[in-house]
């Protein structure tokens, strides 16, 4: 509490101080000529960033018991003036902002066909819990190899390649993850290949090590072992990023991570994909060169614990339903001698080993949880969730099926079931999170003064149309950040309206839209859209879906 008070006081002082520094009392324009920016200019050289290693246990303890981040209910800080996320080292707009073909989505981040042998073992796998290796292909490219658990063939590898493609399409930076089949007899061992020995220290890899590894993972009837080959990321490995704060030695990292829109919105996608392992340990920063300077590039990785997979076993029923530690259900269970049974324990799953445990009937998007609290997820507001849901809405049934098919499941039930579950979970997410704000998109003011927009929730079947939309119009003074509204509201039943001529003679126009819908009370909260006069007409320059 002391820290929060101190933060509030500091911010107030900063704001007052800024005004006092300007003797004229003038304020900056709300919109700059280059708004809305499409690219976040990360122009500082980050060559001096040092690799770090974070403690997994500390991450759990800190986020579970101490809530270290800034929890204020504030708008995401890295959005541009039209409430979108500019491209950056964190995020690249794909679905939702640009047309993306089905082939591009299915291809995902992969830049080639699946790599092939002969493979050379160059090391053991030291990160994560699933058994694995590090291999080199004939071209010298390095891959991390992960296998499936013996009781669930194709489960973890299928989940990994499916989640990789979806998260890439949704804009995140992810590794190239390929499905391959290895045959132990065809593996060569590099003389310098090392693994962790029984003393916890590096030692040379032997054939015995490989035999032991392959005896502990799922194989197929032809003597092959299906695996995910994850291409090594380029650049200098800097370690994971945290879901709160900033990296203190990165000059470009100016937005606290818990206030980054794409990290908040990841909660929506994580819920959809049941990515309960969405925590710091499964992220990675790399120092790369872009435009002649070094910058830190941020990745999500390790999707073995997504969908119905728990990497080394079928996903636990708790996954997605409860944090590892939660006081209330724990004490209720203790005090009722276990006769209180958590509802998610009663969920039944089909017996499809390649799928594991995931379902869509019990799933409630707003109640979904990762393994332990994620500061960025905890800060999700309706406008963040809408931003993410809008992207998810662009993933069609056909796209889901095509991506699930890249899991190459031998059992056709797996493909059918997963496709159905992901469609149903998506629909539940859209019904929930598209409707927590007025879901109008592509709001435009034509040169002839006609306002047009789309209701994406209605278009996607997540809501019925409202009886009417109500619009208030205003002239807007950008320099003074002052809107002067006309009297009265315009009422329309269609998704278009004519702007009053009184507001069209200035440089900026504001349209404030709302709607009444008995099933979606949040639609009555106005969404304010700003238009700026350009030579060719009106440009949409600002959107506020939720007041700060």
């Amino acid at each position, binding site marked *: 509490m002391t820290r929060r008070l101190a933060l509030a006081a500091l911010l107030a002082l900063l704001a007052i101080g800024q005004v006092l520094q300007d003797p004229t009392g003038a304020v900056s324009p709300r919109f*700059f000529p280059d708004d809305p920016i499409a690219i976040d200019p990360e122009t500082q050289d980050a060559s001096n960033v040092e690799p770090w290693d974070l403690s997994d246990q500390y991450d759990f303890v800190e986020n579970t018991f101490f809530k270290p981040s800034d929890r204020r209910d504030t708008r995401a800080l890295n959005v541009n003036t039209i409430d979108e996320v500019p491209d950056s080292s964190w995020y690249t707009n794909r679905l939702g902002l640009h047309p993306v073909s089905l082939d591009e989505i299915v291809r995902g981040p992969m830049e080639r066909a699946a790599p092939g042998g002969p493979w050379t073992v160059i090391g053991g796998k030291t990160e994560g819990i699933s058994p694995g290796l590090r291999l080199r292909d004939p071209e010298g490219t390095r891959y991390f190899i992960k296998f499936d658990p013996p009781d669930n063939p194709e489960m973890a590898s299928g989940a990994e390649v499916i989640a990789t493609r979806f998260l890439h399409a949704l804009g995140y930076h992810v590794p190239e993850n390929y499905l391959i089949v290895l045959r132990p007899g065809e593996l060569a061992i590099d003389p310098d290949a090392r693994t962790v020995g*029984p003393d*916890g220290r590096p030692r040379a890899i032997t054939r015995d090590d490989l035999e032991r590894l392959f005896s502990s993972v799922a194989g197929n009837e032809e003597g092959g072992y299906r695996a995910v080959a994850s291409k090594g990321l380029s650049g200098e490995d800097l370690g994971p990023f945290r879901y709160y704060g900033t990296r203190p030695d990165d000059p470009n990292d100016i937005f*606290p991570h818990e206030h980054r829109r794409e990290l908040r919105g990841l909660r929506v996608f994580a819920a959809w994909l049941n990515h309960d392992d969405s925590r710091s340990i499964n992220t990675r920063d790399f120092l790369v060169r872009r435009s002649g300077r070094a910058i830190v590039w941020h990745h999500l990785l390790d999707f073995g614990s997504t969908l119905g997979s728990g990497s080394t076993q079928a996903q636990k029923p708790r996954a997605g339903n409860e944090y590892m530690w939660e006081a209330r259900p724990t004490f209720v269970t203790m005090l009722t001698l276990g006769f209180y049974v958590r509802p998610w324990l009663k969920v039944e799953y089909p017996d499809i080993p390649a799928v594991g445990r995931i379902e869509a009937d019990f799933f409630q998007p707003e109640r979904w949880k990762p393994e332990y609290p994620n500061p960025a997820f905890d800060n999700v507001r309706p406008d963040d969730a809408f931003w993410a849901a809008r992207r998810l809405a662009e993933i069609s049934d056909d796209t889901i099926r095509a991506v699930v098919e890249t899991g190459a499941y031998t059992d056709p039930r797996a493909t059918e079931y997963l496709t159905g579950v992901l469609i149903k979970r998506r629909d539940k997410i859209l019904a929930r999170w598209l409707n927590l704000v007025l879901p109008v998109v592509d709001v435009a003011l034509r040169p002839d003064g006609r306002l047009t927009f789309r209701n994406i929730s209605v278009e996607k079947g997540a809501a019925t149309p409202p009886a009417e939309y109500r619009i208030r119009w205003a002239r807007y003074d950008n320099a003074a950040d002052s809107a002067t509204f006309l009297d009265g509201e315009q009422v329309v039943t269609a998704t278009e309206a004519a702007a009053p001529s009184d507001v069209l003679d200035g440089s900026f126009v504001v349209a404030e839209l709302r709607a009444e819908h008995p099933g979606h009370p949040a639609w009555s909260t106005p969404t304010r859209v700003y238009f700026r006069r350009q030579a060719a007409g009106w440009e949409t320059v600002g959107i506020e879906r939720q007041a700060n």
Partner: protein
Amino acid sequence: MVRLSSSTVRACRGFAAAALILLPCAAAPAIAQETRRELLEQQRAERARELEPYRPGRVESALMWLEREQLIERWVGGYDGWYPRVGSITRGGGFAGGAGYRQHLGSHVRADASAAISMRNYRAADLDVALPYLANRRLELGVHAEYRLFTEQDYFGIGPDSQRTDRVSFLQEHTEVAARAAYRPLPWLETGGEIGWLNLDIGSGRDTRFPSIEDRFSEAAGAPGLASQPDFLRTRLWVSVDYRDQPGNARSGGLYTASWGDYSDRDTGRYSFGRFDAEARQYFPIFDKKRVIAVRALFAYANNEPGGAVPFYMLPTLGGSTSVRGYRNFRFHDENALLLNIEYRWEAFSGLDMALFFDAGEVRPDWHDIDLQDLNTSYGVGFRFNTYQNVFLRCDVGFGGEGTRLFIAFGPNF
């Protein structure tokens, strides 16, 4: 006045700068900018002048050290090298701590040496050399040497009618060297044999609260073997069927074992005896193993030749943290013992299981006398702090029997 740490101040600056730049607000930046890009570049340039490397706090540093040194893995037996030996030496011995060193010698031999001392001054030292990976890990050969010193073991006399008011303590010191062979033809089936030499000494108990054993018992009256302690040649054969899901914290499956041991008195022959032990455990899971009903039946039988006697310190026992929990550890001794446990366990959260339990058992001089009529019983509640695969701390409170008993122990009950 509120003092802010440097990291907090930096965070505030970042937040304030971002808010001023990207969000509509009333305040103006100190230096007017022409474009959004210029504003962001300026903020990043200012940040570039304030950079510093990340410095973890004390708690995080400590946890990182734990992870780096792999102490947890060493404790649970994962890695070679030094490891902490934490737990109890025997029931009632109190918390014990020590150290061990584990090392693989080549690819087939594993050596392990450790020692510990408890809060009640119990002591233990062990040396084990094994070849655990023979015949594709189906055959294990090994030799083991151990030393134990129990300074104040409880004793109440022999038989079901022994009185708790007769409580005395005694000192037990023993050294044993044994060789073993275990064969697992199937993952769930093991059979094996063991042969060892056992040297034992019994002395005066050091628990000042109670009399020492010689003050109340004698060789002829309630404590055979008290006068002299011979060396034993011990042989044992066993077979076990084990299909538990995870031995350290079983939630499904079962364990069935039977063993026959022969203890040959190499000095007088008077204390030679045979001992048969059988145990059955079964675990019935409910709700994805979040609820478990666990049952156990255990029978022990010791038989001496006519004219001989089974030393009191080698008799089957009843009572205590892994037995009938409404009684003290080792409360009953006799040549035959039957123990029945049933536990209803439920997971409060992934790190804590709780249990309601009911225990019953009896000791008798002859196994024909075991009739389940005059059982010593108790009931209670337990807390088990665990990972999914192992129970590392157990607190059980037993009621009934001879009062309320609290047991804090390392590892599972059964």
